[in-house]
């Protein structure tokens, strides 16, 4: 009795400590954003929404945010067809170089982002596209596509191979089979993957920094630039907006497909 009691005390101590440590930065930023003072402090000095007012009035931040949305949209639009088809092909067919492709899928964890970013910078520079915004979307898609492929693979590997045969048996030619049967069956993975790609591109800092010029920055780069001059609570407010939008995406994910599918992806 006492044994199980002390065990549960220990477990709960760990759980609470983990939650506090994990959420501390978020709580600090959240608190600081509501300050009424003029510098970032925690706990905040008084409560106000004035810094939120400031960021919505700040044209620089607003435009940077729109640019981030634009980049994220391009990245997602490229990743959906590429990642979906790649994942279906990887699960369905015995592909040559499957091993090499598996290794490529580990890239995001093995190759430093900075090296990939420099590679992209040289590549787009050579093509005369440096400084433009849309290549950032392409670059984000190239770098993060493994996440898309993982998400769709999780759905596709649960796909009963007889479903496609059944569709053919019902008289569906290959294209119709794909549109009416295969695609809807992997849809949870596609939705998960595209939301993930969207968030990753929205938050992408290093690659944007390397690829765009000073007049054309995305939101994370803009925030970074601002920090370098003066740290004001409006940056905390921007961060909160960021966190909230990520939260909305997660909630959307859970509502649309259920997080369990996402957590099961391999």
């Amino acid at each position, binding site marked *: 009795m006492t044994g199980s009691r002390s065990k549960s005390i220990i477990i709960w101590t760990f759980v609470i400590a983990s939650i506090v440590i994990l959420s501390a930065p978020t709580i600090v930023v959240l608190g600081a954003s509501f300050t009424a003072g003029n510098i970032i402090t925690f706990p905040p000095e008084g409560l106000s929404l004035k810094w939120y007012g400031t960021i919505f009035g700040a044209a620089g931040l607003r435009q940077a945010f729109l640019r981030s949305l634009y980049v994220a949209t391009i990245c997602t639009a490229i990743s959906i067809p590429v990642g979906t088809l790649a994942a279906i092909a990887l699960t369905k067919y015995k592909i040559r170089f499957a091993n090499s492709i598996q290794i490529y899928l580990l890239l995001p964890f093995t190759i430093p982002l900075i090296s990939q970013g420099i590679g992209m910078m040289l590549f787009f520079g050579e093509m005369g596209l440096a400084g433009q915004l849309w290549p950032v979307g392409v670059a984000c898609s190239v770098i993060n596509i493994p996440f898309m492929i993982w998400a769709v693979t999780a759905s596709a590997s649960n796909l*009963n191979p*007889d*479903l496609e*045969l*059944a*569709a*053919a*048996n*019902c*008289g*569906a*030619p*290959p294209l*119709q*089979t794909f549109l*009416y*049967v295969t695609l*809807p*069956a992997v*849809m949870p993975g596609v939705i998960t993957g595209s939301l993930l790609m969207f968030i990753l591109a929205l938050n992408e800092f290093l690659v944007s920094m390397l690829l765009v010029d000073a007049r054309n920055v995305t939101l994370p780069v803009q925030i970074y630039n601002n920090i370098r001059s003066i740290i004001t609570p409006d940056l905390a407010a921007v961060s909160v907006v960021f966190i909230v939008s990520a939260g909305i995406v997660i909630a959307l994910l859970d509502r649309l497909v259920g997080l369990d599918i996402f957590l099961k992806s391999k």
Partner: protein
Amino acid sequence: MTLSSVDREPADADPTIAVSVRNVGMRYGDFDAVKDASFDLPKGKFLTILGPSGSGKTTLLRLIAGFGEPTTGEIFINGEPVNAVPAHRRAIGMVFQRLALFPHMTAAQNIAFPLKMRRRDARTIADQVERYLDLVKLGGYGGRRIDALSGGQQQRVAIARALVFEPDLLLLDEPLAALDVKLREEMQLEFRRIQKELGVTTINVTHDQREALVVSDEVIVMNDGVIQQKAQPILAYRKPENAFVANFIGVTNFVHGIVTGVDGGVVAFRSGGKDLRGIAGGSAPQLAEGAQCSAAIRAEQIRIVTGGETPDRFEIVVEGVIADTIFEGERIVYEITVPQLAEASLRVFDHDPAAHTQFQPGARIQLGWNSKDMHVF
């Protein structure tokens, strides 16, 4: 005219034949899943391909459905060679082992799918879906999601989807294997009813010998990729072509021995010092004096000779010892060791255990049978 085009002509372009399989083989690497299979199936008949798992029965069915092309041979449907015809142009309905209903569609949408692919107009589709929901007794369930239906209801949706476009041929790939016994027996009769009602030619694949005997007009028994016998159920049971068929269908006992003489269709052989006789089994018996043989006899053809009965009723009477007594409800199965027949172990039924005492293991009894019931292979 080339040689191969001669080969591709059906042997007899008989308009009453729905499916004709000619020397079909399927090889994966160096494994032959189906070897030189040939048969004709008349229109409107219910054929069951029966065999253990790995016998090639499902491979053969899938070749007929068009999922892959045979390595050798040709398949004809309504007299037309179909090897080069892709599955989606074959007009064959199929019920899959795991049903393969489209999980993101309702029952009605599943059933409508084959019609939609055939570009029927909305009115026709709606009417036809209604009709087939009624046929499989699912009227009113059309709007249900697939996962909101029970196992038996899902079976019915799968049947309706396979039949709704009025195919020439219905294929059943062990769809009943996963059901519990009661539901399975109910669905077997349901398949039979629907098949009779629509008159659609049907090929059913199963490893369940009871199902094969109950539902079919014709049975094909397969083993190791080879067709062992094609016959009406009653003939497959009464006149098995070889020892495999004899063993696979029914409860069969084998007595092993050496042939001592062959006289027309009657074979004399010796097992463990006892001289026995049986009829030569199969259509082309190959038994010579001195050869090893196996004699098959059904459990129900062996009788326990009780006190009141005279052993004269039986041509063969042997002494046995009860090794095990198995109570199965409507009958008792005795495992009996017979020292006279080289310690052969025989299974015998007792359908009326209430009439006399049940024998206990160790009891000595007499067994009798007649030579005409013994098939020698």
